[in-house]
């Protein structure tokens, strides 16, 4: 008998071996065939599917954490992504924000039960402890994201989370680790870097990755806009309440606007160049902001190694030369990353064709907004098993922005290695309502001149 088992064991191994070899042979052949064409398709490039809607499937129940404007928007995007998608629970630090979102859903004839709504700093934990919850949407200020993401993975939830995914390196490492934990158990994660879900960007990327502008040699990225919202302190608000209501203006909550908004452009450059920068030098300052402790402009030189640099700039000041976007120069042409490729002489080489509207008129936008497309992708992944996890790539782009911010705040050159391993951990040790014992000085780079 023992001999028999041995023998069959060997046979089975041989059998497996030969089928594996056959498999390799097939793969090799297909690689050869595609090698002739030398064109990498969307799948080989790791690009997401372009969907007209999420596929049918098991009913998915989602909870929203962070009922601000973006959170409520994300919740609406989620339910519009496909059939049988529901928002069934809400959480926010402030009850009034929960009420507003609940009201909004109520007007759409979608009632969210009161017992599924949780306010306070630990509301997210109660929400994630609900049984039957499949998905969580994380849309609080980024300070809280690492903690929320960690809990979501512990509670086996699929995740949509907004960018940026943290405000400091300690948070970034937590997100990367949670991303790997999620991957190990097959939890899908989609992030709000929506350009990665835009068909125009995706097709431009495909062109560039297949050599449309030759070797990439330099880049620039910019997000220059008017001033953004802020809240002035109201009577009766304690320190914590004020900062949370005005979170977009405090670095420990927001990470500064180089994270909050410019991270989109930085992420596109990292995506197209296929790596993160090795170091950053840059500057910034505060000229017109009225509240908080952040800068209102940054100018950063990223060094990607091998002679490739990217100039990143962002500004939030009214009545300046504004605009947002990206640009990449290659040895044989250049691109705006969004929809167009030019030859070196300035002639358009390729352009993305936007769909026509109902009246057969040309348009310059996609039919399905990227905000919805990303949720379609999440639901598609959950329902088909085509796994997706963007958490680490978004964490690395957020860390790129943190490296840049640190370079500007300190005036020093900051390397990837330094920032990846940094123990920078912003914010008060304990997060609770009441007075906050912290200095909020606007950073000044370098040292003072001696008189």
């Amino acid at each position, binding site marked *: 008998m023992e001999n028999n088992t*041995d023998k069959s064991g*060997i046979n089975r191994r041989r059998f497996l071996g030969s089928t594996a070899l056959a498999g390799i042979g097939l793969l090799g052949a297909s690689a050869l065939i595609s090698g002739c064409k030398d064109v990498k398709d969307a799948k080989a490039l790791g690009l997401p599917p372009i969907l007209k809607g999420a596929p049918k499937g098991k009913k998915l129940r989602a909870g929203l954490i962070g009922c601000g404007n973006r959170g409520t928007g994300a919740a609406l995007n989620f339910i519009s992504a496909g059939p049988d998608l529901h928002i069934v629970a809400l959480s926010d630090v402030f009850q009034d924000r929960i009420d507003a979102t609940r009201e909004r859903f109520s007007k759409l004839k979608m009632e969210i039960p009161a017992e599924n709504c949780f306010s306070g700093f630990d509301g997210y934990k109660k929400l994630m402890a609900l049984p039957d919850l499949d998905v969580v949407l994380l849309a609080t200020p980024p300070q809280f994201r690492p903690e929320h993401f960690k809990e979501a*993975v*512990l509670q086996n939830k699929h995740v949509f989370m907004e960018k940026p995914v943290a405000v400091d*390196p300690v948070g970034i*490492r*937590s997100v*990367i*680790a949670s991303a*790997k*934990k999620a*991957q*190990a*158990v097959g939890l899908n994660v989609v992030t709000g870097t929506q350009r990665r879900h835009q068909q125009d960007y995706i097709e431009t990327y495909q062109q560039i990755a297949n050599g449309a502008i030759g070797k990439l040699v330099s880049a620039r990225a910019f997000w220059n806009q008017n001033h953004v919202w802020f809240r002035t302190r109201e009577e009766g608000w304690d320190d914590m309440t004020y900062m949370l209501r005005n979170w977009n203006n405090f670095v420990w909550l927001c990470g500064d606007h180089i994270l909050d908004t410019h991270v989109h452009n930085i992420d596109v450059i990292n995506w197209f160049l296929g790596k993160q920068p090795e170091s950053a030098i840059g500057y910034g300052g505060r000229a017109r902001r009225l509240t908080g402790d952040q800068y209102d402009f940054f100018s950063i030189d990223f060094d990607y190694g091998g002679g490739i640099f990217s100039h990143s700039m962002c500004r939030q000041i009214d009545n300046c030369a504004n605009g947002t976007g990206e640009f990449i120069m290659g040895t044989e042409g250049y691109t705006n990353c969004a929809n167009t490729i030019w030859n070196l002489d300035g002639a358009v080489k390729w352009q993305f064709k936007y769909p026509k509207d109902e009246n057969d008129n040309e348009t310059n936008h996609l039919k399905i907004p990227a905000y919805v497309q990303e949720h379609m992708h999440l639901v598609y992944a959950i329902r088909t098993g085509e796994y997706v996890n963007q958490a680490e790539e978004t964490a690395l782009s957020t860390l790129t922005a943190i490296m840049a911010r640190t370079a500007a705040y300190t005036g020093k050159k900051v390397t990837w290695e*330094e920032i*990846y*391993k*940094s*123990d920078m951990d912003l914010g008060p040790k304990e997060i609770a309502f009441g007075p906050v014992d912290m200095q909020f000085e606007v950073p000044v780079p370098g040292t003072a001149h001696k008189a």
Partner: protein
Amino acid sequence: MKFWKSFHSILSVKRFLLLAILAGISAGIIFVIAGNKTVKYTSTDKYCASCHVHPHAEQSWKLSKHYDNDAGIIIHCVDCHLPPEGHGMLFAKAKHGATDVYGILFKDSSEFNWLAKRKLEKARKFVYVESCVKCHQNLFPKTLTVEGENAHLSFLTSKAEVSCLNCHLDVGHFDPNFKHEHNKNFGVTATQSTQLFTESTFVTNFVNFTEKIPGTNVTFEMVAIPGGQFLMGSPKNEKLRKPDEGPVHSVKLSRFFMAKIEVSWDEYLEFFKATSSQGRKEAEENKNVDAISGPTPPWGAPDQGWGKGTRPAITMTWKAANTYCQWLTKVTGKKYRLPTEAEWEYAARGGSKAPYFFEGDARQYTSAGFFKKILGADTATIQSYAVYKENSQSQAMEPASVKANPFGLKNMLGNVYEFCSDFYSPVAYQAYQKGVVNPKGPKKGQEHVIRGGSYKSDAKDLRSAARDFTKTKAWLVTDPQMPKSVWWYSDSNDVGFRVVCEVDKNIK
């Protein structure tokens, strides 16, 4: 009788041949009939234990997580001690097999230093990372702590070669003393405060003195080293030298005091207790000497479990050693510092121009080379003066175990490497003018000079002129913190230091 004698001499002369043949045969056997069965038969725990005559290995295995775990899974000898198939399994099996055959035939297992074989550097040679990750496929289980996350991220992103063993040395064989965590109780055991010195020793003449550390009951000996001129470096004809030891150049030095022994744990722990800080930031921001911030709690057991007392303190960083000197300066009111490289070599030579301050040369004492390994060398002289590879049993010793050099200094050569204040440059000596006075080494640099060799060194690295340097990155590979400690090296256990004291103008 005569017949037997000649038979024996034939035997010893032919040891090499015999070994080669046996190794060849065993490798041959394994390769030729490497059928599943042979491999299987020779891979059972029972088969391993039939030759590996150290029962504690089996006991510690049975107490370890690889045997005694909630899942009831038993991990067998070869699961860790051989790489998996497809990763050179048969080659490794033949290699280890040949080593084992050699050991059984020619070595006495009762003389093996099993403790030393359990240290990371040895263990890495017979435990395979490929085998670890073959079973441990998920490095990010949900239960992983934040420290574990940082460590595993570091493992994945590190360019240096990190083994799982760097942190998980005790998974296969239980070790009650193994610690892979902050040793928060380190050095806090209360000393008996019977008699604490209120002031340091008052020195009026240039003679040896016993320093008293105020606020403690610790003393240490300082030796008066007269000033003078000497030839630094090794001549081109010195045996087994390295190019960075030249050119030989004349150096003039002022007089100084030097500690008789390497800074001991007794001494270092007083500094640790007086200055240790909780956080790295605190330590870096306090550059004011009046408020010296010292080391954070170390990782694991800095004394390697050998005991503290007069044994040299080790595993501190160069920065920590330098801060120790600042602290000692502050509490004693004298000017203590690390020796310059020139001071160190001058003191180590004790007037000798020869490779060592005692008789003999490196060719005679080295154990490198095949014939030396088989035949051994006459090392009685060096063994009486120095703790090194051949007599250390892989650990640093107390100074009482060796004789002093002509200046009266102990363990200048061997025991532990010693930090110097100079930055290291392989061409440092080329920059010196003839007859340089009190040289301090290159103005800029990354790593610092270390001197004297250690308990791990071969005799050739104990020569007075032999130079080496700190390897900051490699010495912090295991440290799982982000960022890594500035006070303790996680992967260096044979470097310490000794202090010098500048001679005050008022001393006659």
